């Protein structure tokens, strides 16, 4: 605030604590600190009094005790005899899984929609803005529940696949879209499949090397080497050859109706898909707006300048517009990722076993340790948020316009 050039002479007086701007800030801070301590003391005292009255204590011992319940989707080994802590870890991984899948799909849809909103095509433009407005303006919880309702009410249940004249049949005899989730064939890696995978990975590295070489050729010798088709060839041909050389070691396991459910293959549970799709299409509507704003933020002159250099529209987009637009797009994009991750806690509405479902749900219910469980739950989400913010700061510093 204002600086006083000529401080009043004389010794310190008590009234200066309020009236002198040099000391007043200390007074205020002191009062704030006291109030804060009082507030915490008051809450803490109440907590202790309430806990004592109810004969409870605060203890994290329950994390080491067997959980006793089963979880339907576990990325790490887990049985009902595992501890509550392991159940929480299962939940953490499930949260991260759906958040990762959601971010991926939301980005793809969001970028496509955002670009299409600026398309020359009037009809497509209108359709895309309808999409954005509808999904932005309705709560994501409703979208999650609607997609879940599609699973429950529209898609056939496994029992409809049964019998001589079933109501539903599998798609290509390999994919089953049921109300309980989607089943697809799973690869089975026999002996020798390691070599095939190694060849495949090597060919991916080869693609990068080839592209680098092409770029070098272009910059140094001005020689234009086509990259697209050779890349496709490198991607497929060695792997396929290796696959046959090693005697077809990778086979597919098809899902098949046995007993109550389909068995075998890869199973994606309805709750995961409902959550994943709903979060993706909801967040994509916001991302689309960010992308659109980012592209619009690149001034028209840049496009025109690039065009006057003779660049083709695709190259203008890739070499001139996008690199500049990304600077505008990425920070809000990352905060959308953060929102998506936080919204994934709505999993509890469809019974997806993320962290809110295990630690904040069943563990809390079974042990009755509400304060402890919710505190841990918040800490975890806070850690994710802080990690994402840190990434964002690093990125922001990296792409900051370097003014010389």
């Amino acid at each position, binding site marked *: 605030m204002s600086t006083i050039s000529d401080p009043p002479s004389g010794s310190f007086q008590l009234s200066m604590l309020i009236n002198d701007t040099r000391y007043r800030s200390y007074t205020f801070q002191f009062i704030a600190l006291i109030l804060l301590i009082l507030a915490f003391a008051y809450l803490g005292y109440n907590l202790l009094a*309430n806990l004592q*009255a*109810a*004969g*409870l204590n605060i203890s994290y011992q329950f994390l080491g005790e067997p959980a*006793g*319940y*089963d*979880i*339907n989707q576990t990325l790490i080994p887990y*049985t*009902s*005899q595992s501890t509550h802590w392991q159940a929480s870890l299962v939940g953490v991984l499930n949260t991260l899984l759906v958040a990762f899948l959601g971010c991926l799909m939301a980005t793809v849809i969001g970028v496509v929609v955002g670009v299409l909103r600026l398309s020359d095509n009037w009809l497509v433009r209108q359709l895309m803005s309808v999409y954005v407005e509808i999904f932005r303006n309705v709560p994501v919880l409703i979208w999650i529940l609607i997609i879940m309702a599609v*699973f*429950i*009410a529209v898609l056939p*249940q*496994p*029992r*409809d696949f049964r019998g001589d004249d079933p109501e539903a049949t599998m798609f290509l005899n390999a994919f089953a879209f049921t*109300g*309980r989730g989607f089943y697809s064939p799973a690869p089975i890696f026999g002996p020798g499949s390691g070599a095939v995978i190694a060849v495949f990975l090597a060919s991916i590295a080869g693609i990068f090397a080839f592209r680098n070489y092409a770029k070098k050729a272009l910059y140094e010798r001005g020689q234009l080497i086509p990259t697209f088709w050779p890349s496709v060839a490198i991607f497929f041909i060695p792997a396929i050859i290796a696959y046959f050389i090693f005697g077809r070691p990778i086979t597919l396991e098809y899902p098949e109706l*046995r*007993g*109550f*459910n389909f*068995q075998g293959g890869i199973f994606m549970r*309805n709750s995961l898909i409902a959550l994943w799709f709903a979060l993706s299409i909801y967040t994509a509507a916001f991302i689309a707006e960010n992308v659109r704003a980012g592209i619009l933020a690149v001034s028209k002159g840049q496009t025109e300048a690039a065009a006057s250099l003779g660049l083709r529209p695709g190259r203008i987009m890739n070499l001139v517009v996008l690199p500049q637009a990304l600077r505008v797009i990425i920070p809000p994009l990352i905060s959308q990722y953060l929102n998506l991750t936080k919204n994934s806690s709505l999993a*509890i509405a469809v*019974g997806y*076993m993320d962290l809110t*479902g295990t630690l904040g*749900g*069943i563990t*809390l*219910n*079974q042990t*009755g340790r*509400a304060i402890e469980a919710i505190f841990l739950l918040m800490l975890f989400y806070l850690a994710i948020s802080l990690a994402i913010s840190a990434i964002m700061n690093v990125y922001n510093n990296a792409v900051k316009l370097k003014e010389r």
Partner: protein
Amino acid sequence: MKKLAILGAMTVAGLSAGVASAATLDDVKARGKLNCGVTTGLVGFAAPNANGEWEGFDVGVCRAVAAAVLGDPTAVEFVPTTGKTRFTALASGEIDMLARNTTWTFSRDVDLGFEFVGINYYDGQGFMVPKELGVSSAKELDGATVCIQTGTTTELNLADFFRANNISYEPVPIETNAEAQPLYLEGACDVYTTDASGLAATRAAFENPSEHVVLPEIISKEPLGPLVRHGDNQWGDIVRWTLNALIAAEELGVTSANVAEMSASAGSNPEINRLLGTEGTLGEMLGLEADWAKKAIMAGGNYGELFEKNIGENTPIGLARGLNAQWTEGGLLYSPPFR
């Protein structure tokens, strides 16, 4: 506006905190209403009817306690609770008692610090499946998808049962009974498991109850009863003996129809006299009026009447008395003597 109300409430509460401590009875009397925790909706046990009035077997217990304490069976505020919120609601004092088909277990009694005052329904966990699946025993459920309410003992029993029998299953966790219903009916799960009474109540709400069967296996003991907080023994006694009064009344043949007549003057059976307050000072010992038990019985009838009216064989739920018959008729209901 609201913030001020909070401030006001906190200051008032802060001042009165010293006075109002553990005496739940005084709180209830001062408030003029009993706060009773019930389920969010399970037909027959506790569910709001078309007019928004709560009805059911557990509701009957709440009303009996309200009648015994306040003399008015309608002076109850029903607080719907889920598996997650019920214990916190009770521990934090939001409700005075919980009557939400809650299983009496060691850890809930000892570790969570609650006092189960008795058992109003002896139950066990069962399975319901659609008839068309042709399943006749729970042991045939290998690989089945099972809908299950989270936060209940059924979840743990289920894990134990399937592990003990070495068969696999897919749990689908559900928050409330209401959410489980469409999942089960549309076939998103093959089996629905919860307390057998809850299965019967759920089935009764189906359009075609006869298309579903409850499997014969009962895989657990589920003694359901009302509970209160640890530490307020007087209040615990009131709820315990109100429940016992309802049970004893059936045993002694006191019904809502004849209780007025029987309590008009001391009769020949001294236990009835003591129960109804025409002899002795049982009410005074509890800190209630002499005719507390009479009011409790008048509220909705004795145990048998409550049972028949809400969940008995003549209701859509159609539960037989079974274990819940009086001990004189081969059941487990056994009220300690009123003496």
